[in-house]
C-alpha cells in the first residue's frame, strides 16, 4: 500500500502536490518523496519518515514547478532507506516515477538491465520500471511509445505516475491492479491513488480501469488502453461523498477492514524470517530471566505469550505491564526484556525498555512500524509486517504479535527439548492452515456474530471468562469490548469466579465464555464447570464453542458454534470472533468505532 499523486498545472503546483500527498499519508508513512519538473530539469527530494518529517528535512515545499509527482511509502520490497524511497529516476534524470504495487518479474528485468549497463541505486522493484522506460525512449524517441512498451513488459500490479523533462507539462499514469484516479480542475489536473488526493481542489474524478493509461496536461487529458492504444472515452464522476468513505476500501470502518485483513496478517507473521525467530528464542534461552512487556492490548498479547512459553517451552516468562514494569520487575545483566508495541512509540514501553537497558538487561522488541523509536532502541527487532493499522483499536497487530510469540515459543521448545518434534510440526501445520480458516470464518460467521450482538446489546456489564491461554484471550477481548462499545467489561480467569466475582452474577450481567475445543480436555472441562456455576445462579451464559461440543451447546443460553480448527489456533479464532462481536455491538450502539472517545492510537505521553 502506498500513496501516489501527480499534478500538472498552469501555475506553481508544489503546494497542491504537497497537500495532496499529505492527504494520502494514511496509505503509508515510512518514507516520502517529490519530483518536480522545473526549468527543463527534474528535481527530486526524498527521505525516510512521514510527510511532515521529510518536509522538515528536505524542504519539499520550497521546490518549484508546475508539474510533479509525489509518493508516500509503506515498504514492501527493500528496507526503509532514503535510496529506496520514491520517486525513482533514470540515471540522466530525464524520467522520474512513483509506483504503488508489486512487480513480480522485477528480478529478471533487473538482471537484463544490469547486463545492459544500468546502475541501480535502490533495492526496489519500482526502479526497474523507470529504467525500462528510459531504455525504450532511447530506442523509440517518443515518450508515449516508450511508456507503453516498458509497461507491456511488466508482470504484477502497478498504479504509477511519471514525469519527464521531454514533456515538461505532462503527467503519464497507468493502472493495473492498483488504484489510479484522475482529478480534473481549472487549477490543474491530478492523477492519484484515490480521490482523497484532490477532494479539496475538485470533485470531478475520472476513474481508470485496469489495463488503461492516461496522458494528462493542465488543459487536457486522454485515456487509452495499454494493449492496443485504443482511446477510451469516459465521463467524469462527480464525487458527492466525503473523504473518509473512500479510504476504507469498501469497508464501513477501518476496524472491520483490519479484522478482515487478518488472514493476510497471519500469513505475514508466518513469513517473518525464521532466523529472526530463532535468534529471539536463543536469547530467551540464554537469559536468566525473560520478561514479556507491553501495555494495554500488547500486555494481553504478552500474557498470551506467557502461556505459550510455559506450555510449549517450559520457560516462565512473566508478562509485566510496561507502566508498572519499573515497580515490579527485577532486571539486571543476564535478563532479557521483550517489548511489544504496534507503533513502536508507546511512551510507557519506551521508558521501561530504556530502564531495562540501564539496568544492564538485554532488550528485544516486536513492532509494526519500521524505523520506530522502539525498533531503534531495542537490541533485537522482529518486524511483524502487518501493514498500517489505522483504527485506534488494535486488532490485526495484536493477532500478528501473538502468532510471532507462538513461533518463538515453538522454536524455544525444540531448543530446550521440552517440545517434541511431532508436536512442533503439528503446531506449524495448524498455523499454516490458519489464514484460510480465518478467511472462511470471517465470511461465514459474520451474520451470526452480528445477530448475537444485536440480541445481547441490552447488557451494560460484561464478564468475559476463560481458562489457561483462553483467559488471556478473554482479557484482550474484554479490553476490545470496553474500547469500542464503552460498556463496562471485565476479563477474568474462569477459576476466579467462586472466589468472589460470583457475587456479581445475576440476569443483568452478560457472562461470555471462551470455550476451548474438547481436545483441550482439562481446560474445556474447567470452563464448562464455570458455566454451570453461572447458570445455577441465573446468570446468562453466552459462549463461543466448537462444532461437536454438545456439552457446551447444552449449557449456553446464546452464543456461536464455530467450525472446528486445530487446538493450537483455536484461541486465536475465538479472539477474532470476539473482535467482530465487539464491532457489531458497537455498531448497534452507534459508537464512533475507529476513533473511540478518550483514546489515541499511539500513546506517546505518560
Amino acid at each position, binding site marked *: 500500500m502506498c500513496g501516489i499523486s501527480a499534478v500538472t498545472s498552469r501555475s506553481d503546483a508544489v503546494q497542491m502536490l504537497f497537500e495532496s500527498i499529505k492527504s494520502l499519508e494514511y496509505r503509508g508513512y515510512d518514507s516520502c518523496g517529490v519530483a518536480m519538473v522545473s526549468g527543463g530539469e527534474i528535481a527530486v527530494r526524498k527521505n525516510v519518515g512521514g510527510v511532515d518529517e521529510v518536509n522538515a528535512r528536505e524542504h519539499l515545499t520550497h521546490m518549484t514547478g508546475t508539474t510533479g509527482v509525489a509518493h508516500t511509502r509503506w515498504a514492501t520490497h527493500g528496507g526503509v532507506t532514503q535510496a529506496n524511497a520514491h520517486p525513482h529516476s533514470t540515471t540522466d534524470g530525464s524520467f522520474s516515477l512513483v509506483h504503488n504495487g508489486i512487480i513480480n518479474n522485477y528480478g529478471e528485468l533487473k538482471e537484463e538491465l544490469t547486463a545492459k549497463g544500468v546502475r541501480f541505486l535502490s533495492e526496489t522493484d519500482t526502479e526497474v520500471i523507470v529504467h525500462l522506460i528510459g531504455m525504450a525512449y532511447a530506442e523509440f524517441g517518443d515518450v508515449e511509445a516508450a511508456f507503453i512498451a516498458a509497461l507491456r513488459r511488466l508482470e504484477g500490479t502497478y498504479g504509477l505516475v511519471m514525469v519527464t523533462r521531454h514533456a515538461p507539462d505532462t503527467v503519464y499514469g497507468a*493502472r493495473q491492479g492498483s*488504484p*489510479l*484516479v484522475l482529478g480534473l480542475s481549472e487549477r490543474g489536473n491530478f492523477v492519484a491513488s*484515490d*480521490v482523497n488526493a484532490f477532494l479539496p481542489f475538485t470533485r470531478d*474524478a475520472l*476513474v*481508470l*480501469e*485496469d489495463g488503461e493509461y492516461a496522458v494528462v496536461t493542465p488543459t487536457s487529458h486522454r485515456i487509452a488502453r495499454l494493449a492496443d492504444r485504443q482511446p477510451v*472515452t*469516459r*465521463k467524469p*464522476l*462527480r*464525487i*458527492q*461523498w466525503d473523504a473518509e*468513505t*473512500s479510504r476504507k*476500501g*469498501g*469497508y*464501513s470502518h477501518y476496524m*472491520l*477492514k483490519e479484522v*478482515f*485483513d*487478518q*488472514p*493476510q496478517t497471519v500469513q505475514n507473521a508466518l513469513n517473518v524470517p525464521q532466523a529472526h525467530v530463532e535468534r529471539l528464542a536463543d536469547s530467551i534461552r540464554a537469559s536468566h530471566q525473560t520478561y514479556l512487556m507491553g501495555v494495554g492490548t500488547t500486555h494481553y498479547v504478552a500474557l498470551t505469550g506467557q502461556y505459550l512459553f510455559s506450555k510449549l517451552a517450559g520457560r516462565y516468562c512473566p508478562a509485566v505491564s510496561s507502566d508498572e514494569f519499573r515497580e515490579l520487575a527485577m532486571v539486571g545483566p543476564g535478563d532479557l526484556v521483550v517489548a511489544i508495541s504496534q507503533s513502536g512509540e508507546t511512551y510507557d514501553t519506551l521508558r521501561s525498555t530504556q530502564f531495562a537497558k540501564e539496568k544492564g538487561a538485554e532488550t528485544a522488541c516486536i513492532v509494526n512500524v519500521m524505523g520506530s523509536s522502539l525498533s531503534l532502541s531495542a537490541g533485537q527487532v522482529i518486524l511483524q509486517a502487518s501493514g498500517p493499522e489505522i483504527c485506534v483499536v488494535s486488532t490485526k497487530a495484536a493477532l500478528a504479535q501473538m502468532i510471532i510469540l507462538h513461533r518463538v515459543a515453538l522454536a524455544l521448545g525444540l531448543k530446550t527439548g521440552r517440545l517434541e518434534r511431532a508436536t512442533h510440526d503439528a503446531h506449524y501445520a495448524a498455523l499454516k492452515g490458519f489464514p484460510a480458516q480465518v*478467511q*472462511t470464518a470471517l*465470511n*461465514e*460467521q*459474520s*451474520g*451470526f456474530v*452480528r*445477530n448475537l450482538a444485536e440480541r445481547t446489546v441490552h447488557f451494560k456489564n460484561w464478564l468475559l471468562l476463560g481458562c489457561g491461554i483462553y483467559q488471556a484471550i478473554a482479557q484482550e477481548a474484554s479490553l476490545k469490548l470496553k474500547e469500542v462499545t464503552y460498556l463496562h467489561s471485565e476479563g477474568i480467569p474462569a477459576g476466579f469466579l467462586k472466589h468472589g466475582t460470583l457475587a456479581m452474577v445475576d440476569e443483568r450481567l452478560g457472562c461470555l465464555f471462551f470455550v476451548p475445543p474438547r481436545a483441550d480436555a482439562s481446560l474445556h472441562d474447567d470452563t464448562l464447570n464455570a458455566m454451570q456455576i453461572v447458570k445455577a445462579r441465573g446468570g446468562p451464559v453466552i459462549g463461543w464453542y466448537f462444532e461437536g461440543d454438545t456439552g457446551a451447546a447444552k449449557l449456553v443460553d446464546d452464543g456461536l*458454534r464455530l*467450525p472446528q480448527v486445530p487446538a493450537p489456533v483455536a484461541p486465536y479464532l475465538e479472539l477474532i470472533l470476539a473482535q467482530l462481536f465487539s464491532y457489531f455491538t458497537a*455498531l448497534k450502539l452507534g459508537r464512533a468505532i475507529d476513533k473511540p472517545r478518550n483514546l489515541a492510537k499511539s500513546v506517546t505521553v505518560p
Partner: protein
Amino acid sequence: MKAVILAAGRSERLKPFTETRAKPMIRVAGQPMLEYSLRGLAAAGVTDVLIVVHHKGETISSHFEHGARFGLSIEYIRQDPLDGIGAAVRRCEKQLGGDPFLLVYGDVLATGNPFKNVLGQYTETGGAVAALSLPTSSAEFGNVYVDHDMRITRLVEKPTNPQVSNYVFAGFYCLPASFLGLLAEVRNDMVQAFQRLVQQGALYGSLWDGGWIDITRPWQILDANRLVMEAWERAEIHTSVKLEGNAHIEGAVHIEENVRIGAGSILKGPCYIGRDSYIGNNTLIREFTALGPESIVGYGTELKNCVLLGRSILGRLSYIGDSVIGERVHLGTGVTTVNHFDDGRLVPFESEEGVLSSGHAKLGAFIGDDVVIGARNVLAPGTRVRAGTRVEDLISVRTIL
C-alpha cells in the same frame, strides 16, 4: 454517471398489493419504496436514471414522471416480454452509451445512502462493485465470500447450509460498460455474469451496514416501515396541519400538508400521516403507523404498526393492527383486525405456494386495493384479501314488523 433501476417484475409474492401496482410503488413510511433509491441516487450525484418497467409500469411513471422534482432526468424503458433481469439490463445499452453505470434493484429498501459507498469503492477499484449486506436470512440471496481487499472470491448461489451466514448482495451495483457484453456472452444470466466476474477477480464488494431490507412478502412491508421509522429522531409537522382541541402528539410524528386531526386524538410516534388526511376525534394512532395521502380515519379508531397506502376510509371504532391496507379501501364501522393468537404462536400466512410462516407472533390483515369490508367484521390473524373484494356488513338484526 447513469443509473438503471429494475422495476419490471410482477412480484406475485406481494399480492394483493402488486395486483394493482408495481412493487416499487408500495409506500413505506409514507414514501413509495422507489423514492428512497431515487433520492439516494440524486444525493450521490446521479442525474440520469433509466427505470425498466413492465408490470403496472404506469403506476410508476404517473407518480415520478420525468423526475424533475428530484433533480433527476428519468427515462422509462419498457421490458416486453418479461425475459429476466439480464435482458432488462441489456435493454438499456443504447442509453448507457458505453459508460459505467449504477444498477439498482427496485425492490430493495436501504435507509441511508448506499450509493455513495458503492461509488467510493468504484473510484478505488475502477471495476465492478456490489454492495454487500448482512441479512437476517441468507437463503434467498446467495452467499458472498470476500478477501481483505473486499474482492469477492466466491459466490454461492443457493446456499443450503444453515451453518453459514455470509454477506449477501444488497441489490446495488456499479458496473462497467463491459458488463453488458459479458451478459450477452452468458445469455443474459445475471448470476453467471457475476460468477464470471468473480472468477476473473474483477468483482469487489462495498459493505453496507445501514438498514436494508428486501421486500418479498407482505409482512416485510411492515418490517421495512419499522426500519425506516426507527431512525426518525424528530417530529415534522407541516404548517398547514390543523390540530383540534386536546390533540396530543408524542415522539417522531411526521404530518404532511392539510391534515386535520380531531379533538382528543393521540398520536404516538414514530408515525406518519400523509397529506390531506382526516383523523377523527379520539383516535389513537400508535407507533409505526403510516397513513398514505387522503386517508380518512373515523372516530375512536386505534391504529398500530400498520401501513395504509392511501385514499382509504376506516370506519369509526375500528382496530387496525400489524396490517397493510391498500388504496381506496372502505372499512365499515367497527372492523377489527385480530393480530395474534392467545397461545402466542407465530401467525401463518396463506399464499399461492401454500401456508407460510410469517415469523411474527403479531400479524393482522393484508387488504388489496378497492376492497370493501362491511361493518363489524372481524378479520383473523394473517388474513389476505384480494383486490376488489366486497365483504358484506355483519348484520344481526333485520326488520321486525
